[in-house]
């Protein structure tokens, strides 16, 4: 049968837009989302530069721009539209840089940015399809390949202070007396150049929470997980295990809770799954710090939990009226 042809009705002076319902939209766009996320990173970036000096800015600059260029190349090679103006690549590059020591060699920053885009995103189909938080893939890659270049204490040896999580791992709880919690909170600690700026990260993350660009389920349950497990250990033996507040303020716990674990593509979608996800990742942070080979458990904890996301997404309520 030939399908009937609907002739355009008489008037074409006013050509209306025909689009599917709903005709109102909340106004969220990827572009706005990324702008908000970048703005949220700004306080920590400034605080990082204040703390570590211009090398921090240079490292972020290298990682960010290499990430964008790599994305352009990848999209070109795939014959896709080049849409780097949505800032997702820039954001991923900066997230990666935040985990680096401020004085990391420029080529580590560049190589990491390439890995973030190529291994972290492109091979899985691009932004939004990555099963594991992309900057973490690069972090793990660099950490394995160039342990010395990635070592915080080694790189920042000219600073008077120490890397708290490293001290804990090497020298135990007694070594922690050198740290003051207010210092840790204000970012006067060694760590990833942005990841250790706890107060500034809280400001940025708070902004994202208030503007609802991220929901509270993951950050809150992540912090809960860290607190619960560290309290448990601390209860067992305060002489061997660090107090919960230390775990929350040291290393990249806050950065992980607010910026890495909340990565949209690699975290679950439902309310309960998101809550469980945060809880598991947070607990793993402490477990890795206590038993693992890496001082700051955050990157591996989140990567591991990312792999559980599809499973966690199965924890869902029964559909309306469902059996």
């Amino acid at each position: 049968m030939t399908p009937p042809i609907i002739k355009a009705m008489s008037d074409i002076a006013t050509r209306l837009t025909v689009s599917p319902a709903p005709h109102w939209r909340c106004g969220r766009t990827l572009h706005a989302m990324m702008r908000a996320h970048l703005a949220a990173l700004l306080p920590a970036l400034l605080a990082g530069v204040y703390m570590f000096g211009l090398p921090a800015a240079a490292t972020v600059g290298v990682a960010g721009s290499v990430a964008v260029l790599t994305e352009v190349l990848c999209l070109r090679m795939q014959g896709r539209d080049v849409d780097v103006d949505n800032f997702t690549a820039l954001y991923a590059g900066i997230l990666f840089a935040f985990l680096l020591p401020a004085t990391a060699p420029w080529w580590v920053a560049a190589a990491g940015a390439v890995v973030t885009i190529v291994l972290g995103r492109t091979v899985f189909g691009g932004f939004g399809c990555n099963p594991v938080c992309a900057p973490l893939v690069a972090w793990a890659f660099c950490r394995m390949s160039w342990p010395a270049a990635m070592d915080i204490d080694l790189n920042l040896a000219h600073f008077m202070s120490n890397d708290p999580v490293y001290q804990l791992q090497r020298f135990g709880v007694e070594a922690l007396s050198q740290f003051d919690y207010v210092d840790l909170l204000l970012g006067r600690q060694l760590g990833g150049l942005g990841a250790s700026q706890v107060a500034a990260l809280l400001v940025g993350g708070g902004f994202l929470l208030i503007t609802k660009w991220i929901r509270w389920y993951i950050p809150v349950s992540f912090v809960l997980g860290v607190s619960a497990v560290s309290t448990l250990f601390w209860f067992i033996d305060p002489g061997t295990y660090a107090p919960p507040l230390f775990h929350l303020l040291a290393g990249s716990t806050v950065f992980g809770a607010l910026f890495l674990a909340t990565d949209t593509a690699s975290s679950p979608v439902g309310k309960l799954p998101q809550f469980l996800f945060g809880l598991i990742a947070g607990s793993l942070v402490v477990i890795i710090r206590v038993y693992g080979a890496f001082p700051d458990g955050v990157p591996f904890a989140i990567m591991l939990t990312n792999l559980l996301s599809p499973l966690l997404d199965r924890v869902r309520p029964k559909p309306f009226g469902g059996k």
Partner: protein
Amino acid sequence: MLRIHYSLESQLKDGIADIAAPEELSIQVRNLVLKTAKRKKVGFGSTIAEHPSQSGGAFHAAASGTVRDLDYHHLVIACGEGGDDAEPVNVASLQPGRELLRTLQELGIDIAVLSSRAETLVINGMNPEPGVSVAEQMLADEMENLEAGLDVACALIEPQRTILAVADASEYRLPGTTPQSIKAKYPNSLDALVVKAVTGEEFPSNAKIMSVMDLYALGRVVRTGLPVTETVMTIEGRNYRVPIGTPIRHLLSCLGIKAASGDTVVLGGSFRGEAVYSLDEGVRKGDYGMFVISSDAFPHVQDVSCINCGECVLNCPGRIQPNLISRYAEYEMFEMAEKHGLHSCFECGLCAFSCTMRRPLLQYIRFAKDQLRAAGRSEQA
């Protein structure tokens, strides 16, 4: 960022206004059984088409005139000198039963909900969507028709209890029903959620729901004996009585509203309504609102992949995963969509409303439902 309120509250200032009679009526007749032909004269209230289903109401001319144009999609009546007007039917004299139902159907009422009994009858008195205030307008101004409609509905359905669901702050009552207040926020006005709020059960088998608009149409048919030829709709905050088939162009010019190229004109609500492609399109039975949305008001829908942000899932009152289901629909895996709760979706539109990537989620869901329906039909045939 543009903020939308989901409030269903309305401030009614005036009664229902009339619209000047249009020169032409344009009626969608796609998939209907035609009862007239080109160049025939039709009278006011004469049957022009029947619904192919067993319970759908018939369609009638809202004015007398001549059928000027007819294709498989549209029927256009040039108003003016026409055939004989329909005689009123004495509906009130009929006893509840087969004949009454058939008469109602012939007069344009969909009798699906009326043709069997139920323990609970819920009258949905909530405004259906933000920006539409028809329901409360009827509760305020059309009590006689509502009561007449309720009488017939109760006679046919024989419910043990009849409940009127109203917005929490509203004072509207309907004699013969027990009021129950519901928070005036979309999507609480959707039938499935109203029934849940009233009975505590999800999709219960022993409850039925009718909107006050249904009740009004029923009451009017019973009281006048004339078929359904008009709908009441909200346009820019006011309610109008509009003959079915009135071209949108006519409404716009009567009310001094402008629609420019690129704008979207929606019949129905802004969450669930349908965008028309031409201003010559006519108003349909059951259209309770009209919206002109300018082209730059909202970011446009785009065909991109999902980023798993979860906003659609967190906003879905049907507790399903629109991100997943829409992907199944996209790749034509309709059975999988069904398995993951497709039929728990009541098409509220909130998922697509809140999607960061602006994916046409509701479109995909409706597509999957349609495909499954079509597959079901071909299996039966």
